Structures are given as C-alpha cells and as structure tokens.
C-alpha cells in the first residue's frame, strides 16, 4: 500500500549517512593527527604536573611529533575504565593494586615493575593537612584521636588513595612500639573522630576547604600543590609515616608501546624527575637537586614492611572480614563496595 518513493529513499540515505558519521567518529577517534598520539590515563592529582611534563617531553628528540590525549580521574575508577575499554598507552595510577588489575586483564605485562624503580615514578608521604596557623596545634598522629578533633579522610572503600592514609596511621603506631592490637585500637579511635568520609580524595579536600573538620589526611604532593594555589592550609609531616609510591606502566597491548616506553623513560630521567620534584613529588632516582627540600621523616616505612598490598588489602579492607571494615561497620559507616 505504501510506495517507497524518492523522498523515503532520501531519508534512508540521510540516516545511513548519520550512522556512517557515527561509525567514522568511533573508529577515527584513536588515530588523528600526523604524528603519533599517546593516550595517558592517570589519577587526578598529577594533572598539573603533566601540563609541564608533556611539553617538556615534546622538546626532546624522542618526543618530537608525539601528541597526547589525557584523562584524569580517581585512580580506581581510571583503572576500571581502562579494563572496560578506555583507550590507554601509559597509565600513572595512585597505588600498585590499580595496576595489578590491568595485569590481570591482560593489558599490562606482568613484568611491568621489573625495573630499577620497581615500577614507581614518584614518591610521596602521608601528611596531615591543617588550617593555616594550625589552630588546633596538631603535630602528629596522636593528636588526631584527641577528643573534639575533627578528622577527614576519604572512604577507603571507594578511594584507593585513602588506604595509604589508613596504613600510614596504623604503621606509625607499630613504629612507635605499639602492638598490632593496640594499633587497631588507635584506628578505632581515629575513625571515631572522623567527621565525614568523601568518596574520593578530591572530594575530601573540597569538604575540608569548605570548612569542615580540623585535619585532613592526604598526600604530601597534594598538600604542596594546594598550598601553592593559595589555599589557607599548611601541613604537618608526622615523624612516622608511610612512603606513598605511585606506579606507572605501559599498556603492552597498545600499538604505541614503544613510543609509550620512551615517554615513561623520560619521566624517570633526571630531567623528568626534576620537574616532578619542583611540583612537590618526591623523585624515585637519586641525584635530583630539587629533592633536597623534602624532609625525610625519621620513621619512614613502606607498605612492604606491613606485608605488601595484597596481604594488607586482605587483612584490613576485605568487604566482610577486614579490620577496617569491622571498625567502619561498628560506627555505621558505609563499607559498600
């Protein structure tokens, strides 16, 4: 009854063109420009540093003609996105387990960290950020459990970086000579003073800057960056604190793996590490002049001394049986994962 007349064909053609345009956009998005393009997927904090590192890399012979696409977000989310198909050549994440996920998904080779720096590109330490002038006179971990002190930390079940904070506090207690049981008691007291747990480190910082709480546990590099930006804060490096190590890896399955490796090498070179240091990140190689400004806490320890991330995650953050899980539940805080 319906004649397929000319105009109907026109519509069909127009629609096919639209679909084709979509298809082209889909396929073409990863290969644009004359030179090579590297996809950098990173956690949110180093966004400002890469703004300097990438142009610096592009002036080197290895970096000539290389352009970048950049994606920044919470470390765990970025890791999951890459597993789910987010295109990446280089990943710089907040903690090692987020890279391990990519190894499990077959995207990163299992020997990614068999190099001189064990796969890390920057270091930092866990610090306590306080209001400018330090009105509550906070000098270390023990001040955080004093009555009336409001502590902020991201929720360790949504924010991988929050786990550094918790383990810093726990490990510090052990360093001070406490037994594991007493250290756990400390954690309980600490969580009792936590006034809010945001889903990410970024959000926690926003909450703190908006006026809530007296102390925020965070990374040193974040504190340095925000101080430079003019936030009304200062930070305290406790005597005993954890060394935060941020991994970097090349996505082995990508076509640009060789180029990506050159970029990573640059980031680990003296030139690259100097830029990192200038922006508040502790270098992982020696001989960087700018590293002198970073004080070395007398009681610095690593996650290895606590058993490594695999064991720690199981012992502390396991959804049903973890130590921190139990503490949070007893306080009525979400451990939903």
């Amino acid at each position, binding site marked *: 009854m319906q004649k397929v007349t000319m105009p109907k064909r026109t519509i069909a053609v127009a629609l096919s063109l639209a679909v084709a345009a979509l298809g082209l956009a889909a396929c073409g*998005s990863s290969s644009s420009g004359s030179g090579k393009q590297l996809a950098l997927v990173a956690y949110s904090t180093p966004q400002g540093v890469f703004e300097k590192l990438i142009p610096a890399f592009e002036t080197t012979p290895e970096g000539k003609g290389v352009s970048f696409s950049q994606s920044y977000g919470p470390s765990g989310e970025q890791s999951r996105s890459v597993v789910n198909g987010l295109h990446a050549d280089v990943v710089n994440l907040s903690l090692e387990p987020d890279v391990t996920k990519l190894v499990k998904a077959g995207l990163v080779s299992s020997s990614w960290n068999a190099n001189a720096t064990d796969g890390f590109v920057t270091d930092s330490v866990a610090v306590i950020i306080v209001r400018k002038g330090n009105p509550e006179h906070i000098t270390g971990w023990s001040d955080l459990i004093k009555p009336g002190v409001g502590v902020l930390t991201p929720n360790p079940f949504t924010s991988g970086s929050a786990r550094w904070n918790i383990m810093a506090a726990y490990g510090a207690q052990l360093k001070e000579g406490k037994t594991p049981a007493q250290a756990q008691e400390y954690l309980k007291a600490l969580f009792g003073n936590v006034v809010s747990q945001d889903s990410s480190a970024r959000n926690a910082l926003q909450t703190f800057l908006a006026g809530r709480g007296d102390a925020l546990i965070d990374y040193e590099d974040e504190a340095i960056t925000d101080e430079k930006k003019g936030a009304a804060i200062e930070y305290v490096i406790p005597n005993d604190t954890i060394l935060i190590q941020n991994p970097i890896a090349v996505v082995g399955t990508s076509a640009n793996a060789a180029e990506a490796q050159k970029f990573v090498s640059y980031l680990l070179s003296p030139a690259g590490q100097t830029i990192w240091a200038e922006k508040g990140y502790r270098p992982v190689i020696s001989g960087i002049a700018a590293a002198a400004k970073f004080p070395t806490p007398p009681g610095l320890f690593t996650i290895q001394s606590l058993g490594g991330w695999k064991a720690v995650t199981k012992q502390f953050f396991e959804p049903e049986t973890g130590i921190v899980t139990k503490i949070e539940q007893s306080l009525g805080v979400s451990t939903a994962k």
Partner: protein
Amino acid sequence: MSANAARRLGVRMLALGYLALLLGAPVGMIFYRTFEHGLAPVWSAVTAPNAEHAFWLSLEIVAIAVPLNTIFGIGMALLLERGRFWGKGLLGLVIDLPFAISPVVVGLALVLVYGKTGWLGDWLTTNGIQIIFSVPGMVIATAVVSLPFVARETMPVLRELGIDAEQAAETLGASAWQTFWRVTLPAIRWGVVYGVVLSTARALGEFGAVSIVSGRIEGQTQTLPLYVQDRFENFDSTGAYAAAVLLALLALGTLLAMNLLTRRTRGRTAS
C-alpha cells in the same frame, strides 16, 4: 476593593520573592562572580583549548542527536496519532521512559549494553568499534535523554489538526509521502520546531549520563558541562564560572526561542 488590591500585591510579592531567592539571585550571582575581575580572565578561560574543544564537542553531539530525535520523533508521533495497531500505550510508555529514568541510570544502562563487558561488547570489540568512552557513546546518551520532546510536542498538534485535510489530499490522489510533506508537516511545523528547541536545550545541558560514558579524556570526550565540573574540581573557579556563564547564555538563548515560539504555536501570548 483595597483589601483585594492588598491581597493581590501580597500574592505577587510572595511569588516574586520566591523566584528572586531561588532563581534570580543565584543566576545574578554567577554573572557577578564571573565578571567581577573584568572581561580578560573570562575571555582567556573561555578560549583555552580544552574549553573551546568542549564547546565544539557539545555542539557536534547536539547536531547529531537532535536531528535523529526529530526525524524519529515525528515518526513516533505519527504512529501514535495516526496509526492503528496494538501496543500504542506501550509505545507511549517507551517514549516517556527517559523522563522517568535518572541520567545516571541511562549511563549505566548504556554501559551494560555497549561497554566492553556489555551485551554487545564482544561484537563491538571484534569489529573495532568503540562506543563507550568515545564520542558515539556520548551521542547515544544525549539522544536518549532528549528523546521524548519532539514526539511529545508534535502529538497534540497532530491531534488538534485532525485528519480532514489529509483525507482530502488522499482522495485527490496524493501519495502518503506527498500528503505528509505538503499537508501534515507544514501544519505541525511549529510543534516540531518547539520540540526541537526543547530537545536542543536538554541535549546541550546533559551531564549525568554523558559523564558516565565519557572516559574523561581531555580535549576529546569532555563536553562543556563536563568541562565545568573538571575546572571546578581543579579549583579553577574562573574557568568553571566562565564555562558556566557560556552555558547559561546558551540556555537564555534557548529560552528566548521558546518564548517566541510559544506565542506562535499557542496563537496568543503565553502570559
């Protein structure tokens, strides 16, 4: 009569006061905050490469999603108002579904279908097609949330129009297409245009669904609303406000278009 006048004034003040507190003051505030340091910082924020790209990406996505929704919207409206088939109620429900779904849920549903581990994931990967974390996914997300408007605005007009003119055309020998193109479409065009304006406004401003499927790739998958959030999270309030004001201006433009068209479609002043 004075009591009446007093009451009238009181009601008016109440209504206007509410609007001032809720609408006027915040919007005014944003314009003030953005421009309080002059035009230059705003201009440089708006012309930053990522901001410019975000602007054009937003427009590009709208330029694909809205025409698709227009064509299919008219089709759906015709089916519902002129067609006869079982399941009309169901079709109406499907069209209205985007109203009842949170944009975040739209994003989730799309990932479940088009993501790498979704229903169509394997087929898409094998064929090298990237939907989620790329522009096509954002287009689809935008199209979903702005789906109902053209259909919804065209339906009442179609209904009011009635079939007399169309019947007449057919008895005079016009084909179905000719009838549609020369009789129906001109009669419903203001309804369609109004629907397009609403659809465009909704598509330009979409945030939740797109933020889930975008992958946060700077300069590639950031629309202007996503850019606003990015600037805010990086404590770049100038950048955030500048982009926000740009979006607000686009919104005001849409409002003006809506206002003018309302008078056309309704045939009388809307107030």
